[in-house]
């Protein structure tokens, strides 16, 4: 093989791998992206039942109800709207009423959000940025705990 051919093989295989990877990325984005919505979005945007999305907000005060076995019901609110959530499993340590929470799952036809994931945060003062931002956009004032400045960080 000449120098040119050798270089051609190298560049060609590089381009081939890169294009396979790009196809994979595009395909994976179509398949696996999950949108984030607040309870008001759910009310405003008329999200179809059965679509998978992330629902974030605050756990409404007084809404946590333990049911049979490990099933828990609670409401997620952005103080303007409320969505009832059902979750079977074990809640993260820092799940508490009045705290920020992000859940992932599907909306049922009856408007009940069936979550299969409730995201744990490691820090009691931590507010998921999406939740903080959408609460701010909705004009909700956050408590001092939500914008804690210097803190632990890894």
């Amino acid at each position, binding site marked *: *093989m000449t*120098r040119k051919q*050798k270089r051609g*093989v*190298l560049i060609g*295989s*590089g381009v081939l*791998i*890169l294009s*396979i*990877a790009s196809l*994979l*990325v595009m*395909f*994976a*984005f179509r*398949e*696996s*992206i*999950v*949108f*984030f*919505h607040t309870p008001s979005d759910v009310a405003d945007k008329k999200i179809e039942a059965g679509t998978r999305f*992330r629902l974030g907000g605050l756990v409404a005060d007084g809404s946590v109800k*333990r049911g049979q*076995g*490990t099933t828990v019901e609670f409401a997620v609110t952005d103080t303007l709207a409320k969505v009832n959530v059902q979750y*079977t*499993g*074990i*809640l993260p*340590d*820092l799940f508490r009423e009045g705290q920020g929470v*992000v859940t*992932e799952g599907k909306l049922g036809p009856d408007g009940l959000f069936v979550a299969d994931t409730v*995201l*744990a*945060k*490691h*820090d*009691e*003062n*931590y507010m*998921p*940025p*999406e939740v903080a931002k*959408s609460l701010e956009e909705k004009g909700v004032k956050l408590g001092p705990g939500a914008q*804690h*400045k*210097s*803190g*632990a*960080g*890894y």
Partner: protein
Amino acid sequence: MVVEIGHFALILALVVATAQMIVPMWGAQVRDARLMAVGDSAAVVQFALLIISFLALMHAFVTSDFSVLNVADNSHSEKPLIYRIAGVWGNHEGSMLLWVLILGLFGAAVALYGRHLPATLRANVLGVQASIAVAFLLFMLFTSNPFERVDPAPFEGRGLNPILQDPALAFHPPFLYAGYVGFSMAFSFAVAALIEGRIDAAWARWVRPWTLAAWMCLTLGIAMGSWWAYYELGWGGWWFWDPVENASFMPWLAGTALLHSALVMEKRDALKVWTILLAILTFSLSLMGTFLVRSGVLTSVHAFAVDPDRGIVILTIMMFFTGGGLALFAWRAGALRQGGLFAPISREGSLVLNNVLLSVACATVLVGTLYPLALEGITGEKISVGPPFFNMTFIPLMLPLLFAMPFGPLLAWKRGDARAVAQRLAFAGGLAVLVTIGVAALSGPGPWLAPLCAALGLFVLFGAITDLLSRARLGDVGRAEFLRRIISLPRSAYGTALAHAGIGIMVMGIVGTSAYQTEKIVALKPGERAEVAGYDLLFKGITPTKGPNYSEQIAEFEVTRNGSPVTTLLPSKRLYNAPPQPTTEAGIYPAWTGDLYVALGDEQPSGGVALRLYFHPFVRFIWIGAVIMFIGGMISLTDRRLRVGAPQRARSRPAAVPAE
């Protein structure tokens, strides 16, 4: 007083670093040996000052001096000593100080052990290294000073986040940072080479040990973080494709590629331009990792309280060094002469394939990590990219890499014989397939991809052994000669084989636990039983106890298998005093075949307690593999030919080499 000394030492370190940034580089321009020599002493003095500063902060933490804001915010007098020490880097300011300290350590190492480096190269490297230090010291002194006082001093500190009070996590940041910052050496050498417009195999021989050391630390650091997440977070997961994890994984991928391309450059004088580019990109990804973790622009389960304003400063630093490095690259790279021809099927060819796959994989992780940020910036739509994305893109790229891995070290430089190598690997491949079929038949149904991946893992492991055996010419020579040869193989050969074997072992652990894990969520009352993966658990009840700075509810489980006792598991829930935060301590029974894992949930209104029961097959192999990779790196570093400061090859040796 001690605090003021620390603060003063930090300011002095900035002054010294500024001098170190300007004087030696200027000296290199005007070829003045005295000016260049300033860099050496400045690097050592800067490191000494940073040690003083770091020890002063540690003193404040150990003695619980709450008049220091950082200590008051992040420590507590009741905390055990080890966590008061680890608390030094368990917060933003302190961890930045650790970052700069390690940067200073690497700079001092060049000054002390780099005597054989050409004087101008050493001067330029130290200058570039100092410019990074200057940027971060300015950042610390102006936006995140760890020595800031608070008046009046509180009587008690606010405490460290309890889930960080853990032995594995206490040492996770130092290793991670040693990795991140270690890649700064590759960056400094790359920029220095571009400034000089000259680069040769000796350059790669210098950069490789530093990159290897950084890579080892990063490997161990990431593994420690993963291990911690596994037992501390109570969900039994070991990797979540979370942005903060990806932030450390991207430099690892790029660093692994750099390690391999530097090998081609050292041995064959080829891939120069690419290696330089990779060196710049690897450190840029390290800086980006620091930025992502510190700024909190991405939603992460591992995100602790973060400060976006400081993130902007780190972003600026990152843009300056990445942009500056790449601009210099674009300007000067054309001057670098290309050399070393090779056929596509050759050791070089396989290392190029390694590089292409690793950097493309790194790019997919980058896209997946940053896409949500970009989309939100452009359309305002908020999305999350989770594990399914990464599984769909990253795994298909890793499969060919794993398949090609055993071939690489067996191929000859320049032009390899693929068929001969395949023959030598036939036994390893056949064995891998047989074992996989056996295990798959026993373990029952799982995803179709799992046996394939497991076979690849085994192939990599057996391939690494084949590499050693065939280097010692097993079969070609007598037994005594074979033994003599295998003992006297170069240590770098053992290092390579161990690192590759570590990957193979890790892959098996990943496949085992991802494809065949059992998960069960149950609610039990005292006296009730549950069963998972053949283990029988009897819940005996919950006892409250007290630890040094927490109260604890310990549940007791008697574990039996087929009627014979196995162990007693004691998972618990802790409530820490400061800050008042609960944590879950999982009860784990480790075994070679897998871990039995029990985590406590909430108490039920009916009187029982919710439980998460897992069986994670072969999960330990993941971390054992990482430790083997680390050991492989260590052994390779002790190889005489790789040793830092080893004399150059006779060809390029200067006339007079001082006796050692």
